[in-house]
């Protein structure tokens, strides 16, 4: 089985956020770093990956082999494939092995679609607000974990009144408005949520309703970084003060929008090609006026 898991190391240096590929024994600069992993889909057992627990474990091993242990880890959802209790337990067991202070979670739609997130919150909801959203500060950086996979609305784009997009909801937005009220505008803000907070594909529902309202609350901040999962590939966009970034999955790749009739796993990936397939990423180096920069490199 080829290595399929991956993580992105984020290092914060004087408000400059940059990421590098998770490389064994990589040298870290001063500051702190944290790791984002996503879409482990525990319970998935079809092509191209019949061993998703193994590839998640490999991601954990990679994290633990880093010279600088991460301050914490963020999992951006789709922890499980079918939101079953045993899938949550398997994932929690594996992620407990990460040598870090804490793992923060936000759910993906696969974690909540059978019970509106009840099992998810029983395990990962401690200390969160409302339906599971949360915020915390670390070393001068403010982190906000949003949930956009609850109360998904039917949407076919044929006038039925829905977009099929992720949903934030007014209750969460009111909480978020309150949450950032007291922050200085020079505070770097990191927002993490499962479904991208920018529209990647309207056809596939890869976007979030009310994301503009959420982002308008962050307009006054000089440095905003938005970390998402869901799409199982690295996609990136910079818009004004905001840098949007999606992470790879630890389980399987998904097609780029417009390259397949439907989203879902890319099935016909040979085991020995999976790693190079995951490495086929659109890598960009971006430097903006407010000194926010992100660097990605491919897996291979």
């Amino acid at each position: 089985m080829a290595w399929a898991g991956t993580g992105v190391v984020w290092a914060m240096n004087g408000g400059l956020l940059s990421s590098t590929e998770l490389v064994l024994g990589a040298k870290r600069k001063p500051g702190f770093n944290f790791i984002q992993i996503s879409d482990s889909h525990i319970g998935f057992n079809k092509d191209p990956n019949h061993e998703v627990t193994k590839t998640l474990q490999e991601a954990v091993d990679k994290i633990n082999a880093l010279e600088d242990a991460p301050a914490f880890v963020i999992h951006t959802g789709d922890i499980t494939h079918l939101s079953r209790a045993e899938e949550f337990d398997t994932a929690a067991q594996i992620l407990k092995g990460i040598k870090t202070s804490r793992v923060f979670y936000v759910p993906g739609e696969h974690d909540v679609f059978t019970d509106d997130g009840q099992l998810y919150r029983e395990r990962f909801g401690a200390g969160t607000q409302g339906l599971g959203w949360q915020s915390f500060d670390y070393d001068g950086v403010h982190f906000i974990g949003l949930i956009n996979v609850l109360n998904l609305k039917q949407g076919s784009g044929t006038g039925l009144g829905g977009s099929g997009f992720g949903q934030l909801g007014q209750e969460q937005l009111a909480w978020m408005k309150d949450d950032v009220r007291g922050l200085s505008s020079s505070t770097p803000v990191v927002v993490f949520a499962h479904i991208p907070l920018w529209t990647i594909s309207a056809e596939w529902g890869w976007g979030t309703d009310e994301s503009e309202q959420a982002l308008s609350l962050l307009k006054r901040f000089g440095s905003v970084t938005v970390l998402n999962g869901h799409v199982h590939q690295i996609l990136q966009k910079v818009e004004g003060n905001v840098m949007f970034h999606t992470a790879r999955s630890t389980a399987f790749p998904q097609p780029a929008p417009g390259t397949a009739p439907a989203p879902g796993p890319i099935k016909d990936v040979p085991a020995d090609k999976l790693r190079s397939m995951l490495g086929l990423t659109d890598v960009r180096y971006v430097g903006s006026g407010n000194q926010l920069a992100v660097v990605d490199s491919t897996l291979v």
Partner: protein
Amino acid sequence: MLNRWRLKLALILTLAICAVAVASHESHMKMHSAPRTNNVSANPNEVVIANFSFEPATLTVKAGTTVTWVNHDDEPHTATATDKRFNSKTLDNGDRFSQEFNAPGVYNYYCALHPKMTGKIIVK
């Protein structure tokens, strides 16, 4: 006499060529139509879920009919009524869900996991 044999031979050859052509055409057709059979149900009261869509997207049935959904995708899906009157819960690959429709009307539904997927049952 010779001419009649020539005619027969020509006829046999023509038929043989036709047979080969038909055979190759059939195999060609089979190759291309095979994946499609996956999406179409022989049962008129069955909705097949494939390639992230409900097929047929609109199904009209008589009151008292039981409609069955079957998921042919590797990805899990649901058939969830917009007004929550019915909900299949998780349909993994190969799973089926049946619902009886007694009252006439239009029943809109979608996949709770992929809400872009929508369908409707019209009960007459």
